[in-house]
């Protein structure tokens, strides 16, 4: 083969008490799209930071374009033509597209900034290299998430010196049709001979665009797939988690009961309208839909976080959830999609977070009974296997999966009747995912009503009894268990085809 675009070999990186990388290798060739997959904690982000020169590894070699870089600093790596598209959209909301693309590399003339030149070059780059028409004077805050991502890409590549581009979870905040925009841009870059390292949790994307895939587990590369086909998916998963996919979702013979929760005429006047849904007792009811389908907004409205019209009844009696406080008081709880922002008070401890909704039960005369709160929390920690098993640990420092369990612990203590899960496993590693699915299943078996909103079709198919698919603010269809499979769900969700055509297609 040709000379590698870059090669990391035998990288060892230790942090106090952790061996994050344990002799890891990663080699990328020019003109290929190389996938990097692995569970959270497998060492993906660590090796990217080693490549970026942010961490100095204890052992190992870093070669770029055949010559060794040592020590690797962020500046040297940048000069060598390696660019990073970070997961977070690091952009200034009130900047224009042109200002954002040229941030840190502005073009100046004798009379200050050459705004016109920056604008025309930014527009030309977006059009020629990334295949998008985007006016250079638009403000970032008026752009959609995919366009913002492309601005980020343009910023990294506009100087024309990029040889390797590392995409870290580029599609995480995007809806399916926007993913295609990003994919098109990546294909164009590839055709220009640029090497691309594509890090993602979405295996379907990896299979779609990658030429080769490296799988990381426990700090090293456990497999490299030189050929990627449709069937690589399950092999990837078993390489990642070291076991087969089958025991990932809980098995169940649970039978949902009578219709209990009814949504009638939900309408917020903007993003969704005329939503009617019936959910059974002991049922896990899924809601699918792209970004912009009104799914997120419907969940917010249901929980009183967003103004809307519509009536909610539980077993025929009206349920008031006009504010989140009322919803909680009436037995409806939400595990929110943005856990770090809405789910937890991050600077607080596990105990403080887990008892936040049950303070009154853990108090006498209005004063908190610390002992009682602590022992209640320790029970929950044990039940949910929260790690570290320390009731006084600050939640900011917990992993995504354990943070999610703390949110769950709070609501389990509240013994609610209706649970809304919004993207329950985003940023949660595979092991904890399975545990969370099992918990949800257990809740349903005990007769709780579960509404699960998710952008992950595999998750919906694996856990739900029925799934409502939303599109452009309406519920388009409700798929029953017998018809529920990933291909069909994705097809309906993306509007690729109508229901009647695909009902028996798979």
């Amino acid at each position, binding site marked *: 083969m040709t000379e590698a675009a870059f090669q990391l070999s035998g990288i060892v990186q230790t942090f106090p008490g952790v061996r994050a990388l344990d002799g890891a290798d990663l080699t990328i060739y020019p003109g290929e799209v190389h996938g990097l997959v692995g569970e959270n904690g497998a060492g993906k982000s660590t090796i990217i930071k080693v490549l970026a020169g942010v961490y100095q590894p204890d052992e190992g070699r870093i070669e770029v374009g055949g010559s060794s870089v040592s020590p690797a600093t962020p500046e040297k790596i940048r000069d060598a033509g390696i660019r990073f598209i970070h997961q977070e959209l690091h952009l200034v909301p009130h900047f224009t597209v042109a200002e954002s693309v040229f*941030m840190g590399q*502005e073009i100046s003339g004798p009379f200050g900034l050459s705004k016109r030149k920056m604008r025309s070059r930014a527009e030309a780059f977006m059009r020629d290299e990334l295949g998008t028409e985007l006016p250079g004077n638009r403000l970032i805050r008026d752009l959609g998430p995919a366009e913002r991502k492309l601005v980020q890409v343009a910023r990294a590549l506009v100087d024309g010196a990029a040889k390797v581009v590392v995409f870290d979870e580029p599609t995480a905040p995007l809806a399916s049709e926007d993913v295609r925009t990003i994919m098109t841009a990546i294909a164009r870059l590839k055709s220009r001979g640029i090497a691309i390292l594509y890090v993602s949790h979405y295996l379907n994307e990896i299979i779609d665009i990658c030429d080769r895939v490296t799988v990381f587990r426990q700090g090293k590369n456990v497999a490299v797939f030189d050929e990627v086909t449709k069937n690589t998916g399950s092999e990837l998963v078993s390489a990642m988690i070291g076991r087969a996919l089958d025991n990932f979702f809980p098995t169940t013979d649970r039978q949902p009961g009578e219709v209990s929760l009814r949504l009638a005429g939900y309408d917020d006047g903007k993003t969704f309208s005329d939503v009617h849904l019936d959910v059974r007792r002991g049922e896990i009811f899924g809601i699918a839909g792209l970004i912009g389908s009104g799914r997120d907004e419907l969940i917010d409205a249901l929980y009183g976080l967003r103004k809307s019209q519509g009536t909610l009844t539980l077993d025929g009696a009206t349920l008031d959830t006009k504010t989140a406080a009322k919803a909680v008081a009436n037995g409806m709880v939400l595990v929110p999609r943005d856990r770090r922002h809405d789910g937890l008070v991050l600077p607080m401890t596990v105990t403080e977070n887990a008892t936040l909704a049950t303070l009154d039960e853990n108090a006498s005369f209005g004063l908190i009974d610390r002992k009682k709160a602590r022992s209640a929390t320790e029970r929950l920690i044990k039940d949910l296997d929260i790690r570290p098993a320390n009731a006084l640990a600050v939640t900011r420092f917990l992993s995504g999966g354990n943070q999610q369990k703390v949110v769950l612990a709070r609501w389990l203590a509240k013994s609610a009747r209706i649970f809304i899960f919004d993207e329950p496993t985003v940023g949660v590693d595979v092991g904890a995912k399975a545990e969370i699915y099992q918990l949800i299943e257990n809740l349903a078996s005990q007769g709780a009503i579960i509404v699960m909103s998710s952008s992950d079709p595999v998750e919906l198919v694996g856990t739900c009894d029925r799934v409502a698919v939303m599109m452009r603010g309406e519920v388009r269809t409700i798929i029953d268990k017998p018809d529920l499979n990933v291909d069909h769900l994705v097809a309906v969700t993306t509007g690729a085809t109508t229901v009647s055509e695909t009902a028996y297609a798979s």
Partner: protein
Amino acid sequence: MQASARHQRHRLATIVGLLPLIIFLALLLYVGLNAPNFLTVVNLKLVLTQSLTVVLSVIGLSAVVMAGGDDVVSGGIDLSIPATAVLCAGIVAVMTSAGQPVILAAGAALVASMLVGVVNAVLITRLRMAPLLATLAMFVAVVGITNVITERKRLNLNADSIAALRGDIVPGIPLGILLVAILSLLAWFFLHRSKWGLNLQAAGGSRDAAEISGIRVDRLVAQSYLLAAFMGFVTGFFMLARANGYSPGAQDNLMLEMVLATFLGAAFSPRRIVTVWGAILGAVLVAAISIGLKTIGVNVFWTDLIKGALIVIVVALSAISQRVQ
């Protein structure tokens, strides 16, 4: 249909966003109709002269807010600018009264002012103290030091070169107004039309984005506090010129007017962010309202009440327009 609804909301937001300016212009028009000589060249000169110290301070403050972000508590803010101004005025007044040359006094005041800026920068970028807290504490300390230097006494101006700021350079245009106009243009150029200024705005707009783009955020933030201290230094001379000497206690009112003008300016800017020209416009309008109300015979005690209400109205409208959008 949805698109047109969004369009309507957008238009509504624009109108709500323009309301502060409309309210101000309406108020000025009202004053103008009730006091016919208010809208004359002579009065415009009076308004501008009155606003000079605020204009100079808001240039410094808007640079700090641009570099640190516009969250009042955690973002950038420098409340110590007026204290630096009185420190400078105090030093110059004391030294010139004692017979020292103006240039030496100015040098000493410059050193003292920049020292204030350096301490601010260290507290904020090294110790990571909240700017609001750090500069508020510096305000107290610097005013205290100024009171030691001046013994809280009124000192008459003993330097013609400073008094010349009030005089006309060409018939009809006072030197002070001309100088401040030039400084404003320079500030606008460096903060809005230079690479440095754009990087400064990037730093305040999204610290992470700026750092990833290789912008040295802390250095820019520190520079913004030094610039603010320098503007405080310049403000000190205009204070001396305006009051024809040093009079204690000028800092409190300047602090409030400076904050009012800067955040008022944000409501005027199309992107709803703090800008130099917006802040300057805010400063001039606040001065115009003050003088206008006095012209039509409004009790001076009511003027503060109206200013307080204006802060609230402008900021509330700005918040509403963002929510509508």
